[in-house]
């Protein structure tokens, strides 16, 4: 049956299903972007030079250049995938395309936690843990302020926006009062800049992503059940409350990881799941495609940030915010066109 090609994502009738094609396209697009990003910078390289450098056949100087550019690309891919996946998890949990961790303040909370750890001079692994703690704190505040178990989802999102603004202001204030050296690092970090990513921070971030990404992707079945409403999920044998908690914690972990690696970059978690859904034509938010799209989207945004106003580089957060703003206007416009209430 044709409808089931989307269900199982297998190859049928000799042709690939649309989701499988989208995955392939995203992988190939991502690979092309990685190679393109390696050529970009103050010293422009040709793709051939990049290939040779990666194979170890170039002059030591060029090889070093490529090695310097790799962590930034790795950071964009890792943070983008984490954001895309956590966006899909939270938007499913809150049943609202605005219920994204960057909109409801979880990344601002994660940044606040990480900044406090940075001020205390803690090791990177502890800074990462503090980012998770900050995200969890923001999540708890939003959840409790919205009324706990009986929280209305629309109210939860509005309160999330307020909590996010508060955490963001707190971050600004901490940068203002922090010692100059830390303030400079933090200010750059808060912009959502991939330029400052070093290999140690990336390694720590990858260490968190290692278990979180598969754990998040493994939620696909629970997500499909929860999309039908808590009662229906329960009757399918999915305990709704504990499943929601699990999804929320994994989503928070992913948000914290992305924030730890690249700072609170907005709008990737908001856009990636919806774009992935449109691309794959699936009902509900596709988890793996959201992660892939997030990775490719953030890498592409970073490439734009580096060449748009060259030789001056923009923070990648500024590029995603421009695209995100345009998306929000389109989203609200589509609600108005369909005469839906602004949820």
């Amino acid at each position: 049956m044709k409808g089931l090609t989307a269900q199982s994502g297998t190859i049928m009738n000799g042709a690939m299903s649309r989701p499988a094609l989208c995955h392939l396209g995203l992988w190939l697009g991502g690979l092309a972007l990685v190679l393109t990003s390696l050529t970009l910078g103050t010293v422009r390289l040709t793709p051939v030079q990049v290939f040779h450098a990666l194979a170890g056949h170039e002059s030591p100087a060029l090889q070093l250049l490529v090695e310097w550019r790799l962590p930034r690309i790795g950071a964009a891919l890792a943070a983008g995938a984490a954001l895309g996946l956590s966006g899909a998890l939270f938007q499913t949990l809150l049943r609202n395309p605005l219920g994204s961790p960057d909109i409801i303040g979880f990344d601002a909370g994660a940044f606040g936690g990480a900044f406090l750890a940075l001020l205390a001079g803690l090791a990177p692994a502890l800074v990462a843990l503090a980012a998770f703690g900050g995200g969890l704190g923001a999540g708890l505040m939003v959840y409790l302020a919205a009324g706990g178990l009986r929280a209305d989802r629309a109210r939860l999102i509005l309160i999330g926006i307020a909590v996010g603004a508060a955490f963001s202001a707190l971050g600004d204030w901490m940068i203002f009062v922090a010692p100059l050296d830390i303030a400079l690092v933090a200010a750059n970090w808060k912009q959502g800049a991939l330029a400052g990513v070093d290999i140690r921070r990336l390694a720590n971030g990858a260490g968190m992503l290692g278990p979180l990404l598969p754990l998040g992707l493994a939620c696909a079945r629970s997500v499909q059940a929860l999309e039908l409403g808590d009662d229906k999920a329960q009757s399918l044998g999915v305990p709704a409350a504990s499943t929601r908690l699990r999804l929320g914690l994994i989503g928070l972990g992913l948000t914290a990881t992305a924030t730890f690696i690249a700072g609170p970059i907005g709008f990737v978690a908001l856009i990636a799941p919806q774009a992935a859904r449109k691309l794959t034509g699936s009902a509900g938010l596709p988890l793996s495609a959201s992660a892939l799209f997030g990775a490719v989207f953030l890498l592409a945004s970073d490439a734009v940030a580096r060449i748009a106003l060259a030789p001056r580089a923009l923070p990648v957060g500024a590029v995603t915010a421009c695209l995100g703003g345009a998306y929000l206007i389109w989203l609200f416009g589509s609600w108005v066109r369909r005469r839906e209430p602004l949820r």
Partner: protein
Amino acid sequence: MSTKSRLEAQALRAHHGPHEVLKGIDIALPAGSFTVIVGPNACGKSTLLRSLAQLHPSSGGSVLLDGHPIAHYRPRDRARLLAVLPQGAEAPEGIIVANLVARGRHPHRSLFQPWTAADQSAMEAAMEAAGVSQLAERTLESLSGGQRQKVWIAMALAQGADILLLDEPTTFLDLSHQIDVLELCSALNCAGKTIVAVLHDLNQAARYASRLVVMRAGEILAQGLPEDLLTPGFIDEVFHVPCIVIADPLTGKPLIVPKRAALAN
């Protein structure tokens, strides 16, 4: 019809906040029965159904599924025996019927297990039984309310459970779709499913139910055959509607004809 009960509640209590909505319910649902729960609004009939299905936490008493406490079942084992059609189930935008029905196979699948031939045939059989095979490629939004309800029933059938619990399956449907859905339930019951439904319309309940359960204010007033229970005096007592009861000319089941207020005296 076997008299062994599949689902049973003993002294079942439940609360909505501080308000006690089930005040010690004893009920047994025999295998192969079509039980309809009726009662005035807010009498606790939906809560009873939801408590039986473990969708509402009970605050006392017990629910037994095939003789064992239902809480002892693993959720997916329970889901293979008992399927629920709750009120207000949602579906993701743009989902097509076949994919929604396929999601009913959830308790039979696991993370690493691909879609099997058994899943496929169960899904197709469920759509066939619910009469929605023709709609397989349509999106849910493009269907009428009655067709949608049949798709949800098909999904519950794909779950492979013998016991179906339906919470007000005919609400918001027009008359022909109400009859469609009830005829489908009746056909499924004849095919061996044990069915429990909450309904509002007493005449429909009388026509389709093999057992009627009448509730008021969190308690069961009476249960039994519709023709034994539905007397003018009893209906007036429970629903405060003076009426006469005649035999349905088609089925011989009780047919309730309310008296007009001016003629009541």
